[in-house]
């Protein structure tokens, strides 16, 4: 008996990743088989179960040397060298947990919002969860790509079926925009596949590809486009406001909290390690930093003049992700860790904001800021949650937003001071876009009779928002456990970049020779 208990941790580590990935699919079938009314409860139970399961990762995940933990690999399509390979490291562990947390919350948050075709909706939500978890867990590039694309379909239908007025336009725009990038990335993936000569799509094999600087730059462009659209980086962002505005609340939540993260996750997981040379090429770095900063400032400005609350928040996403971009391309440990924390924090706070906006919409059937005012008087709990979330979003110290932005900026400052200085003005502009909205929604006179009946948070809504608010503050007050878990993996990425620097830039006699294969590739 004691033996059994002692073996539980190992057992858990053996199957947990697979369970996280496939349980939602099981839930999908359950939902499809169930009655229309019960769909939401079933979907919530399944995703909740997944969340509970994923909690164990907090203790069982060992950051170790920064490599993958709980790795498993089964051949899938052997003739191509594709395998079903999963793994978890300090970069992905929080993304996975964010996914498992956000999905049940989004589902719970949609109980009242989604009134029609519920079975289909919840089935798609669960499918989406599998897709996103898959993206974060896959350590095989083919598998990653499959999941990366797979997330598009449920999202397309969620936006297109349950969305607002211009839902089809938004859904198609979202779909095509992101597809352009990812398909070009597919070509780049194949290029690396043949360059590596290993006949394998595994992550390690791709790391071993020997690429010249010129090749790296091209491939980098392809990957960066794919992820940059997803993020979205400044001039590639216009799909986002449309998608967000039209999407139903849970769709927006998932979109903001998770789908955008797939882009920046791609930066960390693939872009830097695969093309360490290109990633530190001065021109590339300059471009990425400029775009990141442009995103921060530009999106903040545009957000500030939006009449539609949801669109406003959508633009803030662009601004937040700008911090991630500069943090990542600062190529410092602080920048990378900061970027990761911004990703987590943005997932929580923007997710919460979208939930709050959804609640507003459910009550008033409008998202125009000017239709509100004085809500603080009639819905104090709502207002409190709103204010805390908004503050987390603008990065007030003591909330999660600050930790991320602070680290990203300080990391950027280490290598690119001017960029960091300009980016830091985003701190001002964050207040410039967020506070007026808070004021015009919550404060001012309660002068519209429709708003007098604005109901406060129900018990369900408190359950939805509670964990998110708690997390915002927890990460703001005690982020060290998070930072400690992610650091080794971030260091691994940086080491790879450093290594490439010595090969490609510092006194390499033959730059055309490209990168030497990683020692990791030799170990077997």
């Amino acid at each position: 008996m004691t033996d059994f208990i002692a073996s539980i941790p190992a057992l858990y580590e053996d199957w947990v990743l697979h369970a996280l990935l496939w349980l939602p699919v099981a839930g999908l079938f359950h939902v499809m088989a169930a009655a229309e009314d019960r769909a939401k409860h079933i979907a919530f139970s399944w995703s909740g179960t997944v969340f509970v399961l994923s909690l164990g990762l907090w203790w069982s995940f060992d950051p170790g040397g920064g490599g993958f933990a709980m790795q498993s690999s089964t051949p899938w399509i052997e003739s191509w060298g594709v395998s079903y390979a999963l793994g978890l490291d300090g970069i992905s562990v929080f993304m996975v947990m964010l996914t498992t947390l956000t999905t049940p919350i989004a589902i719970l948050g949609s109980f009242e919002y989604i009134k029609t075709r519920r079975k289909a909706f919840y089935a798609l939500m669960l499918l989406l969860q599998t897709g996103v978890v898959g993206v974060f867990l896959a350590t095989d590039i083919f598998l990653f790509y499959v999941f990366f694309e797979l997330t598009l379909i449920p999202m397309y239908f969620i936006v297109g079926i349950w969305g607002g007025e211009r839902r089809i336009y938004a859904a198609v725009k979202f779909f095509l925009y992101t597809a352009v990038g990812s398909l070009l990335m597919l070509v780049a993936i194949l290029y690396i596949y043949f360059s590596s000569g290993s006949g394998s799509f595994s992550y390690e094999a791709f790391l071993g590809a020997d690429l010249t600087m010129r090749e790296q730059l091209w491939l980098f462009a392809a990957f960066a486009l794919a992820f940059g659209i997803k993020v979205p980086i400044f001039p590639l962002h216009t799909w986002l406001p449309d998608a967000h505005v039209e999407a139903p609340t849970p769709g927006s939540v998932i979109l903001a909290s998770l789908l955008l993260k797939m882009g920046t996750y791609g930066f960390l997981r693939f872009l830097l390690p695969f093309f360490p040379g290109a990633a530190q090429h001065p021109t590339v770095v300059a471009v990425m930093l400029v775009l990141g900063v442009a995103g921060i400032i530009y999106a903040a400005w545009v957000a500030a003049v939006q009449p539609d609350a949801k669109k406003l928040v959508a633009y803030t996403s662009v601004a937040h992700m700008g911090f991630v971009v500069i943090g990542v391309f600062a190529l410092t440990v602080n920048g990378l860790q900061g970027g990761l924390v911004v990703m987590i924090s943005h997932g929580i706070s923007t997710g919460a904001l979208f939930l709050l906006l959804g609640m507003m919409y459910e009550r008033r059937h409008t998202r125009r800021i000017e239709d509100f005012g004085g809500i603080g008087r009639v819905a104090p709990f709502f207002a409190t949650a709103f204010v805390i979330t908004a503050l987390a979003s603008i990065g007030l110290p003591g909330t999660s937003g600050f930790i991320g932005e602070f680290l990203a900026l300080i990391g950027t400052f280490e290598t690119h001071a001017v960029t960091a200085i300009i980016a830091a003005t985003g701190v001002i502009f964050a207040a410039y876009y967020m506070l007026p909205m808070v004021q015009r929604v919550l404060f001012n006179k309660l002068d519209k009779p429709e708003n007098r009946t604005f109901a406060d948070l129900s018990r369900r809504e408190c359950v939805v928002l509670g964990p998110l608010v708690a997390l915002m503050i927890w990460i703001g007050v005690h982020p060290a456990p998070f930072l400690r878990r992610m650091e080794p993996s971030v260091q691994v990425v940086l080491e790879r970049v450093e290594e490439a620097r010595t090969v490609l830039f510092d006194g390499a006699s033959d730059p055309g020779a490209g990168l030497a294969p990683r020692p990791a590739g030799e170990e077997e």
Partner: protein
Amino acid sequence: MGFAASVPGPHLPVQEVAQWEPVLPGLIILLPLLGFVVNGVLALRSAARSSAALRSGTEWDPFAGPARPRTHTLPTWVGPGVMFVAFVLALWNFAGMYGAELHDPVVVRYWTWIVTGNLQIDAAIQLDQLSMIMMLVVTGVGFLIHVFSVGYMKDDTGYPRYFAYLNLFVFFMLVLVMGAGYAMMFIGWEGVGLCSYLLIGYWFTDREKSDAGKKAFIVNRIGDLGFLLAMFLLFQAFGTLDFGPVFEGAEGRLAAGGATVTAITLLLMLGAAGKSAQVPLHVWLPDAMAGPTPVSALIHAATMVTAGVYMVARSSVLYALAPTSQAVVAGVGVLTALLAATIALQQHDIKKVLAYSTVSQLGFMFLGAGVGAFTAAIFHLMTHAFFKALLFLGAGAVIHAMHHALHRADSHEDAQDMRNMGGLKDRMRITWVVMWVATLAIAGIWPLAGFFSKDEIIWYTAAWAGAPSNPFGTLYTVYWLVALVTAMLTAFYMTRLMVMTFHGESRVERNARPHLHEAPRVMWVPLAILAVLSVFGGWVNVPEPLAESFLGLFGALPMSEWLHHWLEPVTHDAAAIQTAALGEPAYGAPLVGGGEFAWALASTLAAAVVVLAALRALGGRKYVAAARDTAAPGGLRGILANKWYFDEVFDAGIVRPVLAASRWCWKVVDAVLIDGFVNFVGNFTRLAGWTVSLFQTGQANTYAFVLTLGVLLVLGAAVFL
């Protein structure tokens, strides 16, 4: 691999220097937080009741029933209660520290806050002489203001919410002053900004009030940007943000007068200017008067706005290394002092006058900190906390009375406009007396607190102006002269305030006059205590020559140079650096020529003359009540009444352009350029498809022709290429 425990748990509190054992220092911070939580829960409960009533179409009046609901009685005890305990604890620790004759700061670490590859920031507090003074001021004055608030806010439905915010403010303020590094300080820094935002916009349904809160927050954030950037530079230079290593290593790592340290200090200065309302970032503070008056007293007079001064004093070592920055700080300070004083001359809102007075006094503090008289700056900070809190609370009492009276008379006159007041001294005796005490104190009349502190700053300015190797000697002399003028102006506008409010004929609405009455005891007792402090608070830092002179009744009065000695461990490094760089200050003041005594005598006489002259000049003047006063002042008076047009300039020069740029970005760049391009690509492709499909005429001849064309192309290419 098991359930790895390789991630270490939080640190247990670790004490680095064991020469003195602080008593529950964390509790001082935690108590207000506890108060916030309790009051916050109460606030939510009461808000839930009132909102439920509102939704059903009625209003909930918590004071309607025979007994007040618990949500409105508990905060009375919880709010001031936690402050009192915190104050006692602070005093206890003060006593301990006093006895221990501490030299090095005591740092208590609680847990690791941020840790990355090369950066570690602990949640730690630092106890030293400076933070001790600040803690005492914050908890002490804070406690008094809490007590005052019990009376002032008694009839406000948001009573528990008010105390929640106030407690939260004190919590963050304590974090600010007790934090053991710039990062911790920044938490408090932004936190107090948040509370200021919430409290200014406390009556949030009023558009103007919540606008004012927003403005305060955003302007503060501009300053915070400077702070943030300064931290980045500090991190780059030192690899840490903790005070200890930074100050110890400063001299070794930073070239004196070098670009780095100058940049750091200027950026810190920017932060301080935002928080302490220095020109040109002062614009938020007058607007901040939208908050309840005790809030103005606590946040916008006594504590938060002085955080900038605290920060400069805290960073004294860095400033000492950067003479240019010092000159800038002093210059900004003196300019602020002058501008604010001039504006105060033409304001009619009692709180606005006090607000500009605060800005002006903060300018003095900056001047002090700028010229290296850090102790003097802190000293003025402390005394200012006493008399300005007193002034605000006094004004609060007046407004309270006016408000009630006007309310009873169903008048819609402005309860804060001095043109509607006059002659209040008969009905509000206590308030009148304590206000005069404070006015004389701020005017710099011996032997009140303000005299010693302000005097010291002006004197030091002159002294450092004469330091042999001061590159900015002339500039300092100019500063000194401006400071003198400003001091006179201070005396004048404060007298004006007193005259307009309390003296002369009553201009209060006739029906309201009978309802005017003195504030309740819970309000005037704190006033009295503050009045005592305003009188004697200055005696803790009197230079020996003065104390031994006539001004100290030849040593008979209990005056000492205690504060100077007390802060010695904090400031002596900076003083040493500065002296080494600039030479000994000239201990004979310019113009007056003599030492401290002569100067002090001259200044207090001058101030007294101004006060008396103002009394004479203004006392006889007929004022017109606001409702009937339509004359817009012209000329210089107009400029002053319009506050030097700062708001207008900012509006036209920054706010509008940014807004216009934002709109342009949205409507042009986003909608037309980027989205236009994207849609163009899509539409173009579809149009191309449609165009090509037109070739599909349905006629076999066409098809055959196209086919043949293809044949020609393929054949031609194959044969010729």
